[in-house]
Structure formats: structure tokens, C-alpha cells
């Protein structure tokens, strides 16, 4: 991460609120709306203070009308404003797909550049405390499918602020996929305004034996896996893609040419998803490892089921640091049936998370 002055330890939600506040102060075409953005809970605190500072014309709650409200964002953006539309869960974005895909994603192209749609859609994936089938869905791959949309997934407060600023300034619809379990995770965040480049992955830890690409919360779990693997003498390079569309295949490709092995851990289903896209790209490029052999690949993600509510089932729905490490171990040791599993570790953001929200 770049060295900027005045760094403070901030929660992700505070970093998001700060980004919005600074951008709204800088540019009066920016406004923020969505159900509950102006209530006392302020979307986990991520919109806190904005109403007091900017008033109800620039931050306001909406009717429960995701389709039309997305259209309103598209129309306001076409008119030169920069709306930020907030969904408290990503599942509700399904109700906005018509406007996002039929209008937002296409307007610039369909109208041959006469129109731009500089809008931001914020949405949060839930997990645990019984979030279950309709509060835990990761829909990034569906959105990544569509030309005209950009999709980003910050996993720390620094990226959250920088991506929020970059998204507001971007002249296209940008979907910011946040993770409920990472809302309160802290990181050092500069006070200044800065952008995190959309389209650039970040190497979270350097390694030579295997590349692990971890998306959203799975970047955190992949870092846990790297720690377990280190104790076994395996050096894993963990990459957080940060931006999902555009996806930084160059950084990923460079890494796998060094390690010869790629494990993609998506925070989502595998079928037709980001993991398939990454592996297809590696295969199409014909990338080889340091031994000249084709890159060895594998992927993990959500179980191919609906997300169950009860914890004892949910635990098996998601990959975790231990299962990721075990898979990586098999790949590095070239022992597909190796049964090594790291000891139980701590996952504070999961263990400590309590709802009800």
C-alpha cells in the first residue's frame, strides 16, 4: 500500500463514510441514496454523519423500489450527477438487474457515447448469524458477465476508501461488493483523498510455491491458509484481485509463471463464475510454470447449494483457511490424496459476528 501521510486505524465502514463525505464535499453532483442510508444505524455506520453534513437533498432514504431507484440513479447520472445507490444486502441487487443491465451498462454504448452513466452501486454480502439463503449471495460473477459494468470487492479499509473514491469519479456504473464480516475490520487509512486503481490486483503476500487468488472475504481466508502453509515450509503468494471487472490477469499471470500453480478461491459459486474465467484465461494464454510445464490449477468456492442458515451446515458451505491450505498442500506436494489439515485456527470476524443485522 502506498505511503500517504496522516494514516489512522479505521474500520472499513468508517473509511467508506469518509470517502463519501470527502467526495460529496469536493463535488456537489455526488449524492447518496438507498433504503436506510439516513437512519440511526447508517448502514453499519458507513453513511454516518452524511445527513448532518449534507442534508436530506443529498442523502436520502428511498421507497422499497430497487428497480425504479436504480433507474433513477441511471437517469440522474445521465444528467451529469454522480449517484451512489446503496443496497444493504447484495441479494436485493437482483431486483435492480433490469435497470443495471438493460440501461446502466448499455447506455454509453447504445447511444454511441452521447451519454455517460457515472453511478456507484454499493452492496453488502452477508454471512453467518443465520444470514442464509437470501442474505449471503455473491452475485459478482453475474455482474462481471456484462460489458459496461465494473465490479470491485474491497477487503480492507484502505481499499474501501480508495475504491469508493475511484468509483465515484469513474464515468461508468461501478458495483462495489462489500462483505458484512469485514465491515469492522481495521486498517491504516490516509486522511487524504486517494484512488485505488480499478483494474489492479494486489499481492498480499509474496511466495514461490503456489499462487492463491482469494476473492472478497476469501482473501482473508487465503492469508490464513498462507500462514498455515508457511509452517509446513510452503511459500504461498496470495493475491487479492481487488477489482473483478476489469480483472488484472497480468498480475495473476506473472505470479503463476513464477509459482507454476494457481488455486482460485472465490467468495461465490464456481459454476460459470470468476474462478472459471480466471482458469480459462490462464489456459488460453498457455501459461507455463518455471519448469516449463502448464500451470497446475484448482478452484474452491461456495458449495454448489443454496446457503443454509444453521451454523453447522454453513461451516461446510464456505472454504476456510484450513481447507484452502489443505488443497494448496496437495497441489504443492503433488499428492492429490494427501490428508494433511492444519490445526484449528481462529477466525475472529466469523466467531465474533453477531447479528441481527
Amino acid at each position: 500500500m502506498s505511503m500517504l501521510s496522516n494514516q489512522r486505524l479505521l474500520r472499513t465502514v468508517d473509511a467508506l463514510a469518509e470517502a463519501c463525505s470527502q467526495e460529496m464535499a469536493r463535488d456537489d453532483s455526488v449524492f447518496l441514496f438507498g433504503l436506510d442510508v439516513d437512519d440511526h444505524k447508517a448502514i453499519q455506520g458507513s453513511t454516518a454523519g452524511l445527513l448532518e453534513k449534507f442534508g436530506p437533498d443529498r442523502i436520502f432514504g428511498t421507497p422499497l423500489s430497487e428497480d425504479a431507484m436504480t433507474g433513477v440513479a441511471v437517469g440522474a447520472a445521465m444528467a451529469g450527477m454522480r449517484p451512489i445507490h446503496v443496497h444493504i444486502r447484495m441479494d436485493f441487487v437482483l431486483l435492480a438487474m433490469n435497470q443495471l443491465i438493460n440501461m446502466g451498462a448499455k447506455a454509453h454504448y447504445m447511444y454511441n457515447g452521447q451519454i455517460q452513466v457515472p453511478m456507484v452501486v454499493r452492496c453488502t454480502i452477508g454471512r453467518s448469524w443465520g444470514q442464509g439463503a437470501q442474505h449471503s449471495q455473491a452475485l459478482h460473477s453475474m455482474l462481471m458477465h456484462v460489458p459496461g459494468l465494473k465490479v470491485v470487492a474491497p477487503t480492507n479499509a484502505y481499499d474501501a476508501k480508495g475504491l469508493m473514491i475511484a468509483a465515484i469519479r469513474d464515468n461508468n456504473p461501478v458495483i462495489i461488493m462489500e462483505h458484512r464480516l469485514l465491515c469492522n475490520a481495521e486498517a491504516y487509512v490516509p486522511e487524504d483523498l486517494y484512488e485505488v486503481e480499478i483494474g489492479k490486483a494486489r499481492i498480499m503476500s509474496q511466495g514461490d510455491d503456489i499462487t492463491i487468488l482469494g476473492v472478497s472475504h476469501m482473501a482473508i481466508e487465503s492469508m490464513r491458509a498462507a500462514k498455515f502453509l508457511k509452517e509446513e515450509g510452503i511459500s504461498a503468494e496470495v493475491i487479492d484481485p481487488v477489482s473483478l471487472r476489469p480483472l488484472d490477469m497480468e498480475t495473476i499471470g506473472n505470479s503463476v509463471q513464477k509459482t507454476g500453480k494457481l488455486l482460485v478461491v472465490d467468495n461465490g459459486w464456481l459454476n460459470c463464475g470468476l474462478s472459471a474465467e480466471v482458469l480459462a484465461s490462464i489456459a488460453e494464454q498457455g501459461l507455463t510454470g518455471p519448469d516449463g510445464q502448464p500451470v497446475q490449477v484448482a478452484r474452491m468456492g461456495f458449495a454448489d447449494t443454496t446457503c443454509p442458515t444453521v451454523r453447522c451446515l454453513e461451516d461446510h458451505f464456505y472454504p476456510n483457511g484450513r481447507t484452502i491450505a489443505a488443497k494448496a498442500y496437495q497441489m504443492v506436494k503433488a499428492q492429490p490424496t494427501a490428508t494433511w489439515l492444519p490445526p484449528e485456527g481462529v477466525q475472529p470476524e466469523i466467531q465474533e459476528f453477531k447479528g441481527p443485522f
Partner: protein
Amino acid sequence: MTQPELVQSLYQTMHLVRRFEEKLVELYPSDKIKSPIHLSIGQEAVAAAVCAPLNQDDIISNTYRCHATHIAKGGNLNAMMAELYGKATGCAGGKAGSMHLVEIESGILGASAVVGTTIPVAAGYALALKNEAKKTGEQRVVTAMFGDGSTEEGCFAETINFAVLHKLPILFVCENNEMAIHNPIERRQAISIQERVKPYGMPMGHVTSGDVFEMHDEVTRLTESVRAGNGPAFIEIETHRWLEHVGPNNDDDAPYRNPADLKKWKENDQVARLAEMLGTEKTAEINAHVEELVAESVTFAEQSAFPTKEELYTHVYA
């Protein structure tokens, strides 16, 4: 505008729409226009009346049946015809075709082929214009065009609720031709459009006569109410589509049609009515000018080049 000027202005717009589309009917079998066309023949009065009180910098949002309002709002005829031909000189360089006509400099938001989708987009534009007026003191207005079928979409109800809540400067115009493709309104709607909209408390209008002057007066009244900052207004204008849903043909004999309705509306043709009011000499003068404009647009389109293959990849992202 004096009454004779109004008659002339409305006639010129309606006749231009009529002749432009009749030219499309003539051209379509040549396959030069490789795009679905949803013609407004029979519905010209609505477009002429709706656009009459609008300034160039006011905004109109359209449906895929957008030729009439595109012309009436002042869209460039040459660029429009070139777009139908798919030429690089078209209003969207051939990427839009008939269903997505657009011309921002004339205040024409791009049209959409997905029924109802432009209604909330128009409201979003109106939100921006409300905001703009606080700085400039000048209230531009948005006119949202849609058909009777659109009022069945969820986003219609969602949008009028939001527009009333935020007192947006938008006029909702329901162009009711009583047909959604081939499905008559009585098979689709449990209660009338008027009854559904009334509870929101907007100023409302309902023109059933087909009379272009009544349309004009009602639209003008409501547009001025919107411009004055009174919040949104709603008008339903009954009309009739003479041709098939999509394409250049008559489908008079199709089972969904009521021949008596078609006959009644054709006898009530406002283009012919206003021609008669203007008299032979004035009509001939306008008609000659219209013929020139239409012919010029065809020549322009035919002489223009198709986009180059590089255009495929332009404007995916801004």
C-alpha cells in the same frame, strides 16, 4: 402563438411524422432498413401535442415506438434516417437503430426496447433538473412517454410514487393505444389507468377524443404546472395504432383488432382534419417542404458510409 400558427405548427409536425413513416413503409421491403420498426402512424397527434410546449433544452424520454416524438422534439431528420439505415452518420452511429433513437442536444433521451425502463430513468433525470433549478432558477422539465402496457410494469408504480414524494419536475404521458403487441387492454388491466394513478394526487388529464387541440391544451396546462414547481403531473391520451405492432404492414384482419375501432379512428384523422383547416394552398406549401425534408434524409442516409469495424469496440466504457 396565434391559433392559425398553432394549426400550422401542429400540422407540419404531424404531417412530417406521417410522411417520414410512410417513406419507411415504402423503403422497408428493400431491406435497406435492417431494424425492427414500430410505427406511429395514427398516433402523430400525441407527439405533436406533447412536444409543442417543450423547449429544446427540456427532456423527453421515449419508448421503442419513438419516431414521432423524436421528430416532434426536433431530432435531426437526416441523422435519424441514417440511424435507421445503420450508417455512421446516424444519431448513434448505427449502434441504436430504430428502437434506441437518441439526440441529447435536442433533449431526446435514448429510447429503450424494454417496456417501462425509461420511466424511472426519466425520473432520475428530473431529480437532476430539480437540483439544477435550485442553482439556475430555471426549471427544465422532463416528459416521460410510455404506453398503456408500461403502466403494468412494477417500475411505473414505483416511479410515480417516488416522483410525487420528491415533487419531481416530470410529466408522465401515457399514450394509450389499448394494445400491447396483440393483447387488448381489457385482458390486461383490472382497473383503469386513471383509477390507479388518481390516489397519488398529481394534477391529471385524460384526453379521449383524439382531438389534437384538446391534447395540446391539456398537455400545455400540465407541462406548465410541472415547470412552475408543482411536482409531477400525469396525462393519459387515447389514440390508435393503425399498423401492425412492428413492421410496415396493415394487420386490419388480425383477430385482436376491432375493425370498428380502426374505422372510427381513421375517420378522426387529425392530419387530414388540420389539412382541411389550413386550406389547399397552405397545405401544399407545407407538404412540399416536408417532401423535401424526407427526400433529403433518404439521400443523406443512402450516401452515408457504414461504420468501420473498429466502431464495434468504441464506447463500451466511458
